[in-house]
């Protein structure tokens, strides 16, 4: 690995951050692409933009989403409708509504870097809070859980800066990390992804505990 030796927990900033962003991914580089403006790289953060794909939460005849009992994959997707907006078009987010968006940028982290995602404060003041955490080795666009907590309808535009990433070094580097078997539910995602919580390994343990209690658990 060509990158300098990582310091656990250290925030990547300034020249060190820029060097990491310039390195090829196979040599420990952080890939955030495409960056439409160089100004997206700031002293300690990288701004990311709203992408073009959305998954809109629906009210359906099925009253409950139950990841413990529903079929994986199918269940969550049936509660959403996918839609697209081009740059120059807009997406209307009504008060209290929930929609999954995604970043325009695709991210690929090396095994010795994790990242934190935070919504831009300007957007937070308008009523939309964004947050997330990315494991070392993560690759894909970032799904954004967008909720309008204000009392006013908000218009979002693909291409607008919505959040910022901060990067932290991890030492020792994570092993097979994010894209290891069983850990990569959202591997190389290129659009907004609905939850795949139903695929997690703990469900069979919880199912046995539920059976032991002799009921459905509801």
């Amino acid at each position, binding site marked *: 690995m060509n990158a300098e030796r990582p310091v656990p927990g250290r925030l990547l900033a300034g020249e060190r951050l820029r060097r990491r962003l310039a390195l090829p991914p196979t040599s420990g580089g952080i890939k955030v692409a*495409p960056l439409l403006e160089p100004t997206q790289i700031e002293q300690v953060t990288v701004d990311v933009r709203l992408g*073009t794909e959305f998954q809109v939460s629906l009210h359906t005849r099925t009253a409950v989403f139950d990841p413990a009992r529903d079929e994986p994959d199918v269940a969550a997707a049936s509660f959403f409708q996918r839609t*697209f*907006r081009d740059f120059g*078009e807009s997406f*209307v987010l009504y008060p209290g509504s929930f929609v999954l968006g995604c970043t325009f940028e695709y991210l*690929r982290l090396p095994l010795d870097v994790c990242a934190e995602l935070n919504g831009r404060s300007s957007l937070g003041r308008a009523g939309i809070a964004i947050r997330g955490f990315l494991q070392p080795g993560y690759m894909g666009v970032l799904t954004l859980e967008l909720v309008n907590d204000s009392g006013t309808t908000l218009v979002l535009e693909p291409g607008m800066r919505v959040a910022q990433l901060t990067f932290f070094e991890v030492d020792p580097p994570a092993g097979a990390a994010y894209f290891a078997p069983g850990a990569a539910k959202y*591997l*190389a995602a*290129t659009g907004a992804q609905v939850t795949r919580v139903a695929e997690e390994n703990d469900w069979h343990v919880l199912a046995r505990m539920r059976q032991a209690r002799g009921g459905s658990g509801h």
Partner: protein
Amino acid sequence: MDQELVAAVLRQSHALEQRLHTVRANAFASPRIKVLIDATQELNDSIRTRFTTYDEDHSDAGTERSLERLWFAMVDLRLVVLPAIEHGSVRGRPIEVMLAMEQLFKVALGQECVALSSPGERHEYAALDVWRRPAVAAEMLGLRPRLVDAGVRFVRLRFSDAERDNVFLHCNLVHEVGHELIKPFHWDDVLSVILGDEAVRQLRSRVEPQPAFNALSEDAKALAMHELLAHNDDGYDTSGVLLNWLEELLADLVGLVVLGPAAALASAEWLNLSTTGAADRWSRTHPRWSFRFDLHREYLDEELDGSSLSHELENYPRALVYLESTHARHVAEALPVEGHESESFGGFSIARDEAFFNALEQALQNKFAYLRSLVADGLGRVGLQFAPAAFRTQVPPLVEQLMVLIPPSTTGEGDAQVPASYPAIVNAGAMVRFGRLDDLVSAVPALAADERRSRGAGQFRAEELISGLARKAIADALMFERWRRAR
């Protein structure tokens, strides 16, 4: 006067009005589609007003012929324009592919184009011009040609909804776009009957766009037909079939010249997925697929000669296994009923003589080089040719990006980064998908685990990943370019 016709049009108009309300509600965020919606609304209003004020003795709409014109315009709006602007065009739009097609049209025609997506249940691809229909209708009604003034063309692209995310299959759309580029607008015979030839001629001069590209000009077409027909001395009037076949081959060539190997692989993939079992048959409208693949092979052999990537197309013939295992000679899917041969083919009967097909294939095969130069010259003039040189230089670095699961959206590093072209991206994807999928599955632990768990599962997931990454790269590259222009 036919009051039933008046009532029928008013009913149609009312239904159209209702549906336009829904379309407008869904599409208000898309200003470009709104131009078409507004034009449709205006036409509908005009038609309804004229019918409502219909008076047999006094109104200018008070002749049978005028009403037929209005009816004609109404049918166009309902059948051609409305499906293009309903929900599929807004909600189910695979944005990256549509943007790539818009770019292609823009370069080919020198005019802005909006590609309206039309996902359907059938496993088929098509391009339909929805620009000229309302433009013609507006002219017929004497309205200001809002669509012509807007300077934006509208094309509806139909594709399989089930395969809406398969970026490689969408390469078949370039063949369909090719049809639109090489074929002059078909002015319906019925329009001539209703309006008269002179009126149609005048309409044409006002409405016909001025495309910068027409690979198959009327002169070139006549020459090709003349040369090809010289090879057939069996006395049949074969021009209808020949013209259809010629246009199919030319559309294939547009696909190959614009996209290179990805176009050939896309049609092979389409065939692999096709379950009709009729893909290797002659028809009045299409040559046999195995014959079309001869054209593809010849083009690719030349294009890839000496390229290190040529070995990655080794899997290409797998698509042909299916074809070659079927009977070598089937006769058209729609054999004419005995004694009822179609007059439109000059008394020519498909069933009559299989030897004719062989002769026609032979004649066309001898003209492959000529047809290739015809299309390559036309596309080269407007800068749409994905030349062998571009394939060899642009594709390999993108293949390497895909192998580490990065969308191959740019070439070069740092400030020298340039957005990759649509053909380069889909070809890189095709090269990985058809040539290096095993390597990718082995390199990514999650995929290897899938493959171990269930044979083929890792490969399937890898195919989906590659398609997704290529799709993302197409969108990124186009947005990148548009962003730079808009700054």
